[in-house]
Protein backbone atom coordinates (compact mmCIF):
# COMPACT_ATOMS: atom_id res chain seq x y z
CA UNK A 1 0.00 0.00 0.00
CA UNK A 2 2.77 2.42 0.82
CA UNK A 3 4.09 1.85 -2.62
CA UNK A 4 0.77 2.49 -4.28
CA UNK A 5 0.40 5.69 -2.31
CA UNK A 6 3.73 7.06 -3.33
CA UNK A 7 2.96 6.29 -6.96
CA UNK A 8 -0.24 8.20 -6.47
CA UNK A 9 1.73 11.22 -5.36
CA UNK A 10 4.13 11.24 -8.26
CA UNK A 11 1.48 10.69 -10.90
CA UNK A 12 -1.76 12.09 -9.65
CA UNK A 13 -4.73 10.43 -11.34
CA UNK A 14 -5.01 11.93 -14.79
CA UNK A 15 -7.38 11.48 -17.66
CA UNK A 16 -5.76 8.12 -18.36
CA UNK A 17 -7.60 6.86 -15.31
CA UNK A 18 -10.88 5.23 -16.18
CA UNK A 19 -13.93 7.02 -14.94
CA UNK A 20 -15.11 5.01 -11.99
CA UNK A 21 -18.43 4.72 -10.36
CA UNK A 22 -18.87 4.17 -6.68
CA UNK A 23 -20.40 0.79 -5.97
CA UNK A 24 -22.00 1.89 -2.73
CA UNK A 25 -20.75 -1.24 -1.00
CA UNK A 26 -19.44 -0.11 2.36
CA UNK A 27 -15.66 0.13 2.33
CA UNK A 28 -15.22 -1.23 -1.19
CA UNK A 29 -14.95 2.18 -2.79
CA UNK A 30 -12.18 3.04 -0.34
CA UNK A 31 -9.99 0.19 -1.52
CA UNK A 32 -10.87 0.27 -5.22
CA UNK A 33 -12.07 3.83 -5.86
CA UNK A 34 -15.13 2.19 -7.39
CA UNK A 35 -15.64 0.14 -10.51
CA UNK A 36 -15.04 1.46 -14.04
CA UNK A 37 -17.83 1.93 -16.55
CA UNK A 38 -17.65 -0.08 -19.72
CA UNK A 39 -15.45 -2.69 -18.06
CA UNK A 40 -16.07 -6.12 -16.66
CA UNK A 41 -15.05 -7.27 -13.21
CA UNK A 42 -14.92 -10.89 -12.15
CA UNK A 43 -15.53 -11.93 -8.55
CA UNK A 44 -14.14 -15.34 -7.87
CA UNK A 45 -14.59 -17.20 -4.63
CA UNK A 46 -15.27 -20.57 -3.08
CA UNK A 47 -18.78 -21.60 -2.29
CA UNK A 48 -20.12 -19.54 0.60
CA UNK A 49 -17.61 -16.75 0.16
CA UNK A 50 -20.28 -14.14 -0.47
CA UNK A 51 -20.13 -13.70 -4.25
CA UNK A 52 -23.85 -13.58 -4.83
CA UNK A 53 -24.35 -11.24 -1.88
CA UNK A 54 -21.66 -8.93 -3.24
CA UNK A 55 -23.26 -8.98 -6.67
CA UNK A 56 -26.76 -8.42 -5.33
CA UNK A 57 -25.57 -5.59 -3.11
CA UNK A 58 -23.76 -4.01 -6.05
CA UNK A 59 -27.06 -3.76 -7.94
CA UNK A 60 -29.11 -2.86 -4.89
CA UNK A 61 -26.88 -0.01 -3.74
CA UNK A 62 -26.64 1.20 -7.32
CA UNK A 63 -30.38 1.75 -7.33
CA UNK A 64 -30.73 2.86 -3.71
CA UNK A 65 -27.83 5.31 -3.63
CA UNK A 66 -27.15 6.38 -7.20
CA UNK A 67 -30.39 5.78 -9.06
CA UNK A 68 -28.68 3.38 -11.46
CA UNK A 69 -31.01 0.55 -12.53
CA UNK A 70 -29.58 -2.94 -12.80
CA UNK A 71 -30.08 -6.31 -14.48
CA UNK A 72 -29.33 -9.54 -12.67
CA UNK A 73 -28.66 -12.58 -14.86
CA UNK A 74 -28.76 -15.73 -12.77
CA UNK A 75 -27.39 -19.00 -14.12
CA UNK A 76 -27.81 -20.96 -10.93
CA UNK A 77 -30.27 -19.98 -8.28
CA UNK A 78 -33.81 -19.30 -9.30
CA UNK A 79 -35.03 -15.77 -8.81
CA UNK A 80 -37.54 -16.60 -6.08
CA UNK A 81 -34.77 -18.09 -3.92
CA UNK A 82 -32.49 -15.17 -4.59
CA UNK A 83 -35.11 -12.66 -3.55
CA UNK A 84 -35.90 -14.59 -0.42
CA UNK A 85 -32.26 -15.06 0.55
CA UNK A 86 -31.45 -11.36 0.55
CA UNK A 87 -34.55 -10.27 2.39
CA UNK A 88 -32.63 -10.59 5.65
CA UNK A 89 -30.40 -7.74 4.48
CA UNK A 90 -33.45 -5.56 4.13
CA UNK A 91 -33.25 -5.53 0.33
CA UNK A 92 -36.73 -5.51 -1.13
CA UNK A 93 -36.02 -6.56 -4.68
CA UNK A 94 -39.65 -7.21 -5.52
CA UNK A 95 -40.37 -3.54 -4.98
CA UNK A 96 -37.47 -2.55 -7.26
CA UNK A 97 -38.79 -4.91 -9.92
CA UNK A 98 -42.21 -3.34 -9.66
CA UNK A 99 -40.64 0.09 -10.02
CA UNK A 100 -38.78 -1.02 -13.15
CA UNK A 101 -35.41 -0.47 -11.54
CA UNK A 102 -34.40 -4.12 -11.40
CA UNK A 103 -34.79 -7.00 -13.86
CA UNK A 104 -33.99 -10.64 -13.36
CA UNK A 105 -33.00 -12.83 -16.25
CA UNK A 106 -33.38 -16.46 -15.29
CA UNK A 107 -30.71 -18.19 -17.36
CA UNK A 108 -30.61 -21.30 -15.23
CA UNK A 109 -30.73 -24.46 -17.29
CA UNK A 110 -34.36 -25.33 -16.83
CA UNK A 111 -34.59 -28.65 -18.61
CA UNK A 112 -31.27 -30.16 -17.79
CA UNK A 113 -32.12 -33.78 -18.48
CA UNK A 114 -34.41 -32.99 -21.36
CA UNK A 115 -31.91 -30.94 -23.30
CA UNK A 116 -29.30 -32.16 -25.73
CA UNK A 117 -26.60 -30.20 -27.49
CA UNK A 118 -26.36 -31.57 -31.04
CA UNK A 119 -24.16 -29.06 -32.84
CA UNK A 120 -22.74 -25.58 -32.99
CA UNK A 121 -24.66 -22.82 -31.29
CA UNK A 122 -24.26 -19.31 -29.99
CA UNK A 123 -25.74 -17.54 -26.97
CA UNK A 124 -27.72 -15.15 -29.11
CA UNK A 125 -30.87 -16.02 -27.16
CA UNK A 126 -29.32 -14.87 -23.91
CA UNK A 127 -27.84 -11.80 -25.56
CA UNK A 128 -31.24 -10.75 -26.91
CA UNK A 129 -32.82 -11.17 -23.48
CA UNK A 130 -30.09 -9.17 -21.79
CA UNK A 131 -30.29 -6.31 -24.23
CA UNK A 132 -34.04 -6.27 -24.07
CA UNK A 133 -33.94 -5.93 -20.28
CA UNK A 134 -31.13 -3.36 -20.32
CA UNK A 135 -33.03 -1.25 -22.80
CA UNK A 136 -36.32 -1.57 -20.98
CA UNK A 137 -35.12 -0.25 -17.60
CA UNK A 138 -32.18 1.80 -18.91
CA UNK A 139 -29.78 -0.29 -16.83
CA UNK A 140 -26.38 1.06 -15.83
CA UNK A 141 -25.20 -2.05 -13.99
CA UNK A 142 -25.37 -5.73 -14.78
CA UNK A 143 -24.49 -8.90 -12.92
CA UNK A 144 -23.90 -12.36 -14.39
CA UNK A 145 -24.02 -14.91 -11.55
CA UNK A 146 -22.30 -17.26 -12.07
CA UNK A 147 -20.69 -17.87 -15.40
CA UNK A 148 -19.13 -21.09 -14.13
CA UNK A 149 -22.46 -22.86 -14.66
CA UNK A 150 -22.23 -22.20 -18.38
CA UNK A 151 -18.88 -23.93 -18.55
CA UNK A 152 -20.27 -26.80 -16.57
CA UNK A 153 -23.24 -27.24 -18.84
CA UNK A 154 -21.88 -26.55 -22.31
CA UNK A 155 -18.81 -28.67 -22.40
CA UNK A 156 -16.88 -26.67 -24.96
CA UNK A 157 -15.04 -24.02 -22.93
CA UNK A 158 -13.66 -22.22 -25.95
CA UNK A 159 -17.14 -21.75 -27.40
CA UNK A 160 -18.49 -20.43 -24.11
CA UNK A 161 -15.53 -18.13 -23.78
CA UNK A 162 -16.11 -16.78 -27.28
CA UNK A 163 -19.83 -16.31 -26.62
CA UNK A 164 -19.29 -14.61 -23.26
CA UNK A 165 -16.75 -12.35 -24.87
CA UNK A 166 -19.34 -11.34 -27.45
CA UNK A 167 -21.92 -10.58 -24.78
CA UNK A 168 -19.45 -8.62 -22.67
CA UNK A 169 -18.16 -6.51 -25.51
CA UNK A 170 -21.68 -5.57 -26.54
CA UNK A 171 -22.42 -4.55 -22.94
CA UNK A 172 -19.18 -2.60 -22.70
CA UNK A 173 -20.18 -0.62 -25.77
CA UNK A 174 -23.26 0.42 -23.85
CA UNK A 175 -20.95 1.62 -21.04
CA UNK A 176 -22.43 -0.63 -18.38
CA UNK A 177 -20.57 -1.66 -15.26
CA UNK A 178 -20.38 -5.42 -15.55
CA UNK A 179 -19.91 -7.81 -12.67
CA UNK A 180 -19.34 -11.53 -13.24
CA UNK A 181 -19.01 -14.20 -10.60
CA UNK A 182 -17.36 -17.58 -10.76
CA UNK A 183 -16.48 -20.34 -8.33
CA UNK A 184 -13.12 -21.53 -7.28
CA UNK A 185 -12.39 -24.75 -5.51
CA UNK A 186 -9.59 -23.75 -3.15
CA UNK A 187 -9.01 -20.59 -1.14
CA UNK A 188 -5.44 -20.33 -2.28
CA UNK A 189 -5.25 -22.00 -5.65
CA UNK A 190 -6.07 -21.19 -9.23
CA UNK A 191 -8.22 -18.11 -9.65
CA UNK A 192 -11.22 -19.86 -11.13
CA UNK A 193 -12.58 -23.33 -11.58
CA UNK A 194 -12.20 -23.64 -15.33
CA UNK A 195 -9.11 -21.52 -15.60
CA UNK A 196 -10.49 -19.29 -18.32
CA UNK A 197 -13.02 -17.09 -16.51
CA UNK A 198 -10.40 -14.61 -15.34
CA UNK A 199 -9.21 -13.97 -18.88
CA UNK A 200 -12.63 -12.82 -19.94
CA UNK A 201 -12.76 -10.01 -17.40
CA UNK A 202 -10.80 -6.78 -17.18
CA UNK A 203 -10.60 -6.85 -13.40
CA UNK A 204 -10.49 -9.70 -10.94
CA UNK A 205 -11.55 -9.69 -7.29
CA UNK A 206 -11.18 -12.67 -4.99
CA UNK A 207 -13.41 -13.32 -1.99
CA UNK A 208 -12.14 -15.71 0.65
CA UNK A 209 -13.67 -17.36 3.65
CA UNK A 210 -10.90 -19.04 5.61
CA UNK A 211 -10.79 -20.74 8.94
CA UNK A 212 -8.30 -19.03 11.18
CA UNK A 213 -7.95 -19.87 14.86
CA UNK A 214 -11.26 -21.70 14.76
CA UNK A 215 -13.03 -18.64 13.45
CA UNK A 216 -14.09 -17.69 9.96
CA UNK A 217 -12.37 -14.74 8.46
CA UNK A 218 -13.66 -13.23 5.24
CA UNK A 219 -11.38 -11.25 3.00
CA UNK A 220 -11.50 -9.54 -0.35
CA UNK A 221 -8.50 -9.07 -2.59
CA UNK A 222 -8.19 -7.02 -5.75
CA UNK A 223 -6.08 -9.32 -7.86
CA UNK A 224 -6.11 -7.52 -11.15
CA UNK A 225 -7.31 -4.04 -11.92
CA UNK A 226 -6.37 -2.93 -15.40
CA UNK A 227 -4.90 0.51 -15.57
CA UNK A 228 -6.05 1.55 -12.19
CA UNK A 229 -4.87 2.26 -8.69
CA UNK A 230 -6.15 0.09 -5.90
CA UNK A 231 -5.15 -1.31 -2.54
CA UNK A 232 -3.16 -4.49 -2.67
CA UNK A 233 -3.53 -7.44 -0.36
CA UNK A 234 -6.41 -9.02 1.47
CA UNK A 235 -8.87 -6.79 3.28
CA UNK A 236 -11.24 -8.10 5.91
CA UNK A 237 -14.94 -7.90 5.48
CA UNK A 238 -18.00 -9.05 7.32
CA UNK A 239 -21.52 -9.87 6.25
CA UNK A 240 -24.11 -8.52 8.63
CA UNK A 241 -27.87 -8.65 8.59
CA UNK A 242 -28.30 -4.90 8.49
CA UNK A 243 -25.83 -3.86 5.84
CA UNK A 244 -24.75 -6.89 3.87
CA UNK A 245 -21.08 -6.79 2.95
CA UNK A 246 -19.03 -4.34 4.93
CA UNK A 247 -15.36 -4.08 4.04
CA UNK A 248 -12.91 -2.88 6.65
CA UNK A 249 -10.29 -1.04 4.65
CA UNK A 250 -7.20 -1.32 6.75
CA UNK A 251 -4.49 -0.43 4.34
CA UNK A 252 -6.08 2.79 3.25
CA UNK A 253 -6.46 4.19 6.72
CA UNK A 254 -4.36 7.22 7.14
CA UNK A 255 -3.20 8.90 10.26
CA UNK A 256 -4.83 12.21 9.52
CA UNK A 257 -6.44 12.68 12.88
CA UNK A 258 -5.92 15.99 14.57
CA UNK A 259 -4.84 15.85 18.14
CA UNK A 260 -6.43 17.93 20.80
CA UNK A 261 -4.63 20.09 23.32
CA UNK A 262 -7.61 20.22 25.58
CA UNK A 263 -7.43 18.22 28.77
CA UNK A 264 -10.18 16.55 30.71
CA UNK A 265 -10.28 14.82 34.04
CA UNK A 266 -9.54 11.14 34.30
CA UNK A 267 -12.03 11.00 37.15
CA UNK A 268 -9.27 10.75 39.68
CA UNK A 269 -7.65 13.97 40.93
CA UNK A 270 -4.23 12.64 41.94
CA UNK A 271 -4.01 10.78 38.62
CA UNK A 272 -4.81 14.01 36.76
CA UNK A 273 -1.97 15.60 38.63
CA UNK A 274 0.37 12.78 37.67
CA UNK A 275 -0.54 13.37 34.03
CA UNK A 276 0.20 17.04 34.19
CA UNK A 277 -3.45 18.10 34.44
CA UNK A 278 -5.63 15.34 33.03
CA UNK A 279 -5.81 13.32 29.85
CA UNK A 280 -5.91 14.85 26.38
CA UNK A 281 -9.42 15.06 25.08
CA UNK A 282 -9.12 12.70 22.14
CA UNK A 283 -6.39 10.47 23.45
CA UNK A 284 -6.41 6.73 23.81
CA UNK A 285 -5.38 5.37 27.12
CA UNK A 286 -4.20 1.90 27.96
CA UNK A 287 -4.29 0.51 31.47
CA UNK A 288 -2.18 -2.55 31.91
CA UNK A 289 -2.06 -4.67 35.02
CA UNK A 290 -2.39 -8.13 36.46
CA UNK A 291 -5.73 -9.44 37.56
CA UNK A 292 -7.10 -7.58 40.57
CA UNK A 293 -4.78 -4.59 40.35
CA UNK A 294 -7.67 -2.21 39.76
CA UNK A 295 -8.08 -1.91 36.01
CA UNK A 296 -11.85 -2.08 36.07
CA UNK A 297 -11.77 0.46 38.90
CA UNK A 298 -9.81 2.86 36.73
CA UNK A 299 -12.34 2.36 33.98
CA UNK A 300 -15.13 3.06 36.45
CA UNK A 301 -13.47 6.28 37.57
CA UNK A 302 -12.92 7.29 33.96
CA UNK A 303 -16.65 6.83 33.34
CA UNK A 304 -17.48 8.80 36.47
CA UNK A 305 -15.14 11.59 35.38
CA UNK A 306 -16.88 11.75 32.02
CA UNK A 307 -20.33 11.77 33.52
CA UNK A 308 -19.50 14.51 36.00
CA UNK A 309 -18.10 16.52 33.12
CA UNK A 310 -21.47 16.30 31.36
CA UNK A 311 -20.21 13.83 28.70
CA UNK A 312 -21.78 10.76 27.14
CA UNK A 313 -19.96 7.51 27.85
CA UNK A 314 -20.12 4.13 26.14
CA UNK A 315 -18.81 1.18 28.13
CA UNK A 316 -18.12 -2.15 26.47
CA UNK A 317 -17.42 -4.95 28.89
CA UNK A 318 -16.10 -8.26 27.67
CA UNK A 319 -15.22 -9.80 31.01
CA UNK A 320 -18.01 -9.16 33.45
CA UNK A 321 -21.76 -9.05 33.32
CA UNK A 322 -23.75 -5.86 33.67
CA UNK A 323 -24.90 -6.80 37.15
CA UNK A 324 -21.36 -7.43 38.34
CA UNK A 325 -20.17 -4.14 36.90
CA UNK A 326 -22.99 -2.16 38.46
CA UNK A 327 -22.42 -3.82 41.82
CA UNK A 328 -18.65 -3.30 41.72
CA UNK A 329 -19.05 0.34 40.76
CA UNK A 330 -21.48 0.73 43.64
CA UNK A 331 -18.82 -0.64 45.96
CA UNK A 332 -16.55 2.18 44.84
CA UNK A 333 -19.21 4.82 45.27
CA UNK A 334 -20.18 5.11 41.60
CA UNK A 335 -23.83 4.73 40.60
CA UNK A 336 -23.94 3.36 37.02
CA UNK A 337 -27.71 2.90 37.07
CA UNK A 338 -28.27 6.55 37.83
CA UNK A 339 -25.97 7.51 34.95
CA UNK A 340 -27.83 5.20 32.59
CA UNK A 341 -31.17 6.65 33.66
CA UNK A 342 -29.79 10.09 32.91
CA UNK A 343 -29.20 8.74 29.38
CA UNK A 344 -25.50 9.55 29.31
CA UNK A 345 -24.06 6.10 29.97
CA UNK A 346 -24.54 2.96 27.93
CA UNK A 347 -23.16 -0.33 29.20
CA UNK A 348 -22.87 -3.23 26.77
CA UNK A 349 -21.67 -6.52 28.18
CA UNK A 350 -20.54 -8.78 25.34
CA UNK A 351 -19.25 -12.31 25.45
CA UNK A 352 -15.91 -12.10 23.64
CA UNK A 353 -16.19 -15.49 21.96
CA UNK A 354 -19.60 -14.65 20.54
CA UNK A 355 -18.22 -13.01 17.44
CA UNK A 356 -15.15 -12.64 15.28
CA UNK A 357 -12.86 -9.65 15.65
CA UNK A 358 -14.35 -8.05 12.58
CA UNK A 359 -17.83 -8.43 13.97
CA UNK A 360 -16.76 -6.98 17.32
CA UNK A 361 -15.25 -4.05 15.50
CA UNK A 362 -18.37 -3.44 13.48
CA UNK A 363 -20.49 -3.70 16.58
CA UNK A 364 -18.34 -1.11 18.36
CA UNK A 365 -18.47 1.23 15.39
CA UNK A 366 -22.22 0.86 15.18
CA UNK A 367 -22.70 1.54 18.90
CA UNK A 368 -20.47 4.60 18.73
CA UNK A 369 -22.30 5.99 15.74
CA UNK A 370 -25.64 5.37 17.40
CA UNK A 371 -24.89 6.54 20.92
CA UNK A 372 -22.38 9.24 19.94
CA UNK A 373 -20.32 9.13 23.12
CA UNK A 374 -17.40 11.43 23.85
CA UNK A 375 -15.82 8.80 26.07
CA UNK A 376 -15.43 5.15 25.38
CA UNK A 377 -14.28 2.43 27.75
CA UNK A 378 -13.32 -1.10 26.80
CA UNK A 379 -12.62 -3.77 29.40
CA UNK A 380 -10.59 -5.66 28.34
CA UNK A 381 -8.58 -5.99 25.18
CA UNK A 382 -7.11 -9.23 26.48
CA UNK A 383 -10.54 -10.86 26.40
CA UNK A 384 -10.93 -9.91 22.75
CA UNK A 385 -7.41 -10.95 21.92
CA UNK A 386 -8.06 -14.50 23.10
CA UNK A 387 -8.46 -16.77 20.15
CA UNK A 388 -7.39 -14.38 17.47
CA UNK A 389 -4.16 -14.25 15.58
CA UNK A 390 -1.62 -11.55 16.36
CA UNK A 391 -1.97 -10.03 12.94
CA UNK A 392 -5.76 -9.83 13.08
CA UNK A 393 -5.67 -8.38 16.55
CA UNK A 394 -3.22 -5.73 15.49
CA UNK A 395 -5.46 -4.81 12.57
CA UNK A 396 -8.44 -4.69 14.89
CA UNK A 397 -6.62 -2.26 17.18
CA UNK A 398 -5.45 -0.04 14.38
CA UNK A 399 -8.88 0.21 12.84
CA UNK A 400 -10.52 0.74 16.23
CA UNK A 401 -8.13 3.43 17.39
CA UNK A 402 -8.23 5.31 14.13
CA UNK A 403 -12.01 5.14 14.18
CA UNK A 404 -12.08 6.52 17.72
CA UNK A 405 -9.76 9.34 16.74
CA UNK A 406 -11.81 10.19 13.69
CA UNK A 407 -14.92 10.44 15.84
CA UNK A 408 -12.89 12.37 18.45
CA UNK A 409 -13.80 9.94 21.17
CA UNK A 410 -11.55 9.66 24.19
CA UNK A 411 -10.98 6.07 25.12
CA UNK A 412 -9.69 3.86 27.88
CA UNK A 413 -8.79 0.24 27.21
CA UNK A 414 -7.51 -2.30 29.66
CA UNK A 415 -5.07 -5.10 29.12
CA UNK A 416 -4.37 -7.91 31.53
CA UNK A 417 -0.75 -8.79 32.05
CA UNK A 418 -0.06 -12.42 32.67
CA UNK A 419 2.45 -12.05 35.47
CA UNK A 420 1.09 -11.24 38.90
CA UNK A 421 4.23 -9.48 40.06
CA UNK A 422 6.05 -7.25 37.67
CA UNK A 423 5.00 -8.13 34.19
CA UNK A 424 6.53 -7.65 30.84
CA UNK A 425 3.41 -7.57 28.82
CA UNK A 426 2.01 -4.29 27.81
CA UNK A 427 1.16 -6.60 25.31
CA UNK A 428 3.23 -6.37 23.50
CA UNK A 429 4.35 -3.60 21.54
CA UNK A 430 1.51 -3.49 19.10
CA UNK A 431 -0.98 -2.21 21.65
CA UNK A 432 1.41 0.22 23.18
CA UNK A 433 2.50 1.98 20.01
CA UNK A 434 -0.99 3.04 19.04
CA UNK A 435 -2.10 4.28 22.42
CA UNK A 436 -1.26 7.78 23.58
CA UNK A 437 -1.00 7.12 27.25
CA UNK A 438 -0.06 3.99 29.13
CA UNK A 439 -0.80 3.52 32.80
CA UNK A 440 0.70 0.53 34.57
CA UNK A 441 -0.87 -1.02 37.64
CA UNK A 442 1.35 -3.47 39.45
CA UNK A 443 1.61 -5.52 42.60
CA UNK A 444 4.68 -5.12 44.74
CA UNK A 445 5.44 -7.37 47.65
CA UNK A 446 7.25 -5.99 50.67
CA UNK A 447 7.89 -8.39 53.54
CA UNK A 448 4.85 -10.49 52.83
CA UNK A 449 2.52 -7.55 52.25
CA UNK A 450 1.16 -6.91 48.82
CA UNK A 451 1.01 -3.29 47.77
CA UNK A 452 -0.58 -1.88 44.66
CA UNK A 453 1.36 0.68 42.70
CA UNK A 454 0.59 2.89 39.72
CA UNK A 455 2.84 4.63 37.27
CA UNK A 456 2.52 6.42 33.98
CA UNK A 457 4.75 4.74 31.49
CA UNK A 458 4.16 7.04 28.60
CA UNK A 459 2.09 10.03 27.73
CA UNK A 460 2.31 11.49 24.27
CA UNK A 461 2.82 15.23 24.08
CA UNK A 462 2.83 15.89 27.79
CA UNK A 463 4.97 15.97 30.84
CA UNK A 464 4.05 13.38 33.40
CA UNK A 465 5.51 12.13 36.63
CA UNK A 466 7.98 9.34 36.25
CA UNK A 467 7.53 8.06 39.78
CA UNK A 468 5.80 4.98 41.06
CA UNK A 469 2.99 5.65 43.52
CA UNK A 470 1.23 3.36 45.88
CA UNK A 471 -2.56 3.32 45.94
CA UNK A 472 -5.35 1.81 47.97
CA UNK A 473 -8.81 0.83 46.97
CA UNK A 474 -11.68 1.64 49.30
CA UNK A 475 -15.38 2.42 49.09
CA UNK A 476 -14.63 5.74 47.48
CA UNK A 477 -12.49 4.23 44.74
CA UNK A 478 -8.82 4.61 44.05
CA UNK A 479 -6.70 6.51 46.57
CA UNK A 480 -3.31 7.33 45.14
CA UNK A 481 -0.72 8.24 47.71
CA UNK A 482 0.98 11.56 47.18
CA UNK A 483 4.34 10.09 48.12
CA UNK A 484 6.44 8.11 45.72
CA UNK A 485 6.72 4.41 46.44
CA UNK A 486 10.40 4.02 47.16
CA UNK A 487 10.50 0.81 49.07
CA UNK A 488 11.31 -1.32 46.08
CA UNK A 489 13.00 -1.06 42.77
CA UNK A 490 12.69 -3.14 39.64
CA UNK A 491 8.92 -3.41 39.86
CA UNK A 492 8.34 -2.76 36.20
CA UNK A 493 11.07 -5.04 35.03
CA UNK A 494 9.42 -7.94 36.78
CA UNK A 495 12.37 -8.32 39.19
CA UNK A 496 11.29 -6.33 42.25
CA UNK A 497 13.97 -5.80 44.88
CA UNK A 498 13.80 -3.96 48.12
CA UNK A 499 15.65 -0.73 48.03
CA UNK A 500 18.75 -0.41 50.20
CA UNK A 501 17.03 1.91 52.63
CA UNK A 502 14.29 -0.66 53.06
CA UNK A 503 16.85 -3.42 53.66
CA UNK A 504 18.71 -1.42 56.27
CA UNK A 505 15.51 -1.07 58.32
CA UNK A 506 16.11 -4.61 59.54
Amino acid at each position, binding site marked *: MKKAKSIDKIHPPKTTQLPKTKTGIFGFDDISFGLPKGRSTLISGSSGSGKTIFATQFLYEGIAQFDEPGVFVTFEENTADLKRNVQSFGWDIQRLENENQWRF*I*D*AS*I*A*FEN*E*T*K*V*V*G*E*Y*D*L*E*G*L*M*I*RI*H*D*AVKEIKAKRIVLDSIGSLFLY*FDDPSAIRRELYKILSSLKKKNLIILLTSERLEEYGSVSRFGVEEYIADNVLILRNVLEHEKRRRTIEILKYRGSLHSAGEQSFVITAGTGIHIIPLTRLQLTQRSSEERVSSGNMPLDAMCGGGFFKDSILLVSGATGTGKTLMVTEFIKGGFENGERVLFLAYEESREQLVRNAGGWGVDFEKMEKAGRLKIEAVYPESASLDEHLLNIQKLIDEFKPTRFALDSLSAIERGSSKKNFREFLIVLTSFLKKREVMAICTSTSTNIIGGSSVTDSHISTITDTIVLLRYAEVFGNVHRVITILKMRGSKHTKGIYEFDIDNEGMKISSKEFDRMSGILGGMPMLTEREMSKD
Partner: protein
Amino acid sequence: MAKLCFQIFIAGKSHRNDQLVDFFTEACHSYLNEGIYEIKLIDLIRNAPLAEQHKILATPTITRINPSPEKRVIGNFSREGAARALIFLIEDLNDKKYEKS
Protein backbone atom coordinates in the same frame (compact mmCIF):
# COMPACT_ATOMS: atom_id res chain seq x y z
CA MET B 1 -55.08 -36.59 -29.47
CA ALA B 2 -53.08 -33.44 -28.94
CA LYS B 3 -50.84 -32.31 -31.72
CA LEU B 4 -47.10 -32.56 -31.46
CA CYS B 5 -45.83 -29.00 -31.27
CA PHE B 6 -42.30 -27.89 -32.10
CA GLN B 7 -40.80 -24.41 -31.86
CA ILE B 8 -37.65 -23.45 -33.69
CA PHE B 9 -35.87 -20.47 -32.14
CA ILE B 10 -33.40 -18.67 -34.35
CA ALA B 11 -31.70 -15.30 -34.13
CA GLY B 12 -31.98 -13.52 -37.45
CA LYS B 13 -32.12 -14.64 -41.06
CA SER B 14 -29.18 -16.61 -42.40
CA HIS B 15 -28.48 -19.38 -44.85
CA ARG B 16 -27.66 -21.68 -41.98
CA ASN B 17 -30.93 -20.98 -40.26
CA ASP B 18 -32.90 -21.54 -43.45
CA GLN B 19 -31.13 -24.84 -43.87
CA LEU B 20 -31.85 -25.86 -40.30
CA VAL B 21 -35.57 -25.18 -40.77
CA ASP B 22 -35.56 -27.10 -44.07
CA PHE B 23 -33.75 -30.12 -42.62
CA PHE B 24 -36.01 -30.31 -39.61
CA THR B 25 -39.19 -29.93 -41.67
CA GLU B 26 -37.98 -32.68 -44.00
CA ALA B 27 -37.24 -34.97 -41.09
CA CYS B 28 -40.70 -34.42 -39.65
CA HIS B 29 -42.26 -35.00 -43.05
CA SER B 30 -40.55 -38.33 -43.48
CA TYR B 31 -40.93 -39.67 -39.91
CA LEU B 32 -44.26 -38.29 -38.70
CA ASN B 33 -47.83 -38.64 -39.87
CA GLU B 34 -49.24 -35.60 -41.62
CA GLY B 35 -51.57 -33.39 -39.65
CA ILE B 36 -50.33 -34.69 -36.33
CA TYR B 37 -47.62 -32.11 -35.75
CA GLU B 38 -46.97 -28.42 -36.19
CA ILE B 39 -43.76 -26.39 -36.39
CA LYS B 40 -43.51 -22.74 -35.31
CA LEU B 41 -40.55 -20.66 -36.37
CA ILE B 42 -39.63 -17.87 -33.97
CA ASP B 43 -37.04 -15.26 -34.86
CA LEU B 44 -35.92 -13.82 -31.54
CA ILE B 45 -34.45 -10.73 -33.11
CA ARG B 46 -37.99 -9.64 -33.97
CA ASN B 47 -39.54 -11.20 -30.87
CA ALA B 48 -37.23 -10.49 -27.96
CA PRO B 49 -39.88 -11.01 -25.24
CA LEU B 50 -40.37 -14.59 -26.45
CA ALA B 51 -36.74 -15.34 -25.65
CA GLU B 52 -37.42 -14.30 -22.07
CA GLN B 53 -40.75 -16.09 -21.92
CA HIS B 54 -39.30 -19.40 -23.09
CA LYS B 55 -35.96 -18.91 -21.30
CA ILE B 56 -33.89 -19.43 -24.40
CA LEU B 57 -30.13 -19.20 -23.85
CA ALA B 58 -28.60 -20.61 -27.00
CA THR B 59 -29.65 -20.45 -30.63
CA PRO B 60 -30.63 -22.36 -32.58
CA THR B 61 -32.87 -24.20 -30.12
CA ILE B 62 -35.72 -26.51 -31.05
CA THR B 63 -38.24 -27.29 -28.33
CA ARG B 64 -41.06 -29.75 -28.14
CA ILE B 65 -43.58 -27.92 -26.00
CA ASN B 66 -46.44 -30.29 -26.50
CA PRO B 67 -47.01 -32.86 -25.17
CA SER B 68 -45.17 -31.97 -21.95
CA PRO B 69 -42.60 -32.38 -20.51
CA GLU B 70 -40.69 -29.95 -22.66
CA LYS B 71 -37.63 -31.25 -24.49
CA ARG B 72 -34.96 -29.27 -26.28
CA VAL B 73 -32.15 -29.69 -28.76
CA ILE B 74 -29.51 -27.01 -29.09
CA GLY B 75 -27.21 -26.41 -32.03
CA ASN B 76 -26.98 -26.78 -35.77
CA PHE B 77 -27.27 -30.09 -37.62
CA SER B 78 -26.93 -31.67 -41.02
CA ARG B 79 -29.72 -33.53 -42.85
CA GLU B 80 -28.83 -36.74 -40.97
CA GLY B 81 -28.46 -34.81 -37.73
CA ALA B 82 -31.98 -33.48 -38.13
CA ALA B 83 -33.36 -37.00 -37.95
CA ARG B 84 -31.36 -37.74 -34.82
CA ALA B 85 -32.55 -34.49 -33.25
CA LEU B 86 -36.16 -35.34 -34.02
CA ILE B 87 -35.79 -38.81 -32.56
CA PHE B 88 -34.39 -37.30 -29.34
CA LEU B 89 -37.35 -34.92 -29.17
CA ILE B 90 -40.00 -37.66 -29.43
CA GLU B 91 -38.27 -40.79 -28.07
CA ASP B 92 -39.97 -40.53 -24.68
CA LEU B 93 -43.48 -40.53 -26.12
CA ASN B 94 -43.76 -44.27 -26.80
CA ASP B 95 -46.69 -43.51 -28.99
CA LYS B 96 -46.67 -45.12 -32.38
CA LYS B 97 -49.55 -42.93 -33.50
CA TYR B 98 -47.18 -40.09 -34.32
CA GLU B 99 -44.75 -42.07 -36.39
CA LYS B 100 -45.19 -43.34 -39.90
CA SER B 101 -45.25 -47.07 -40.06
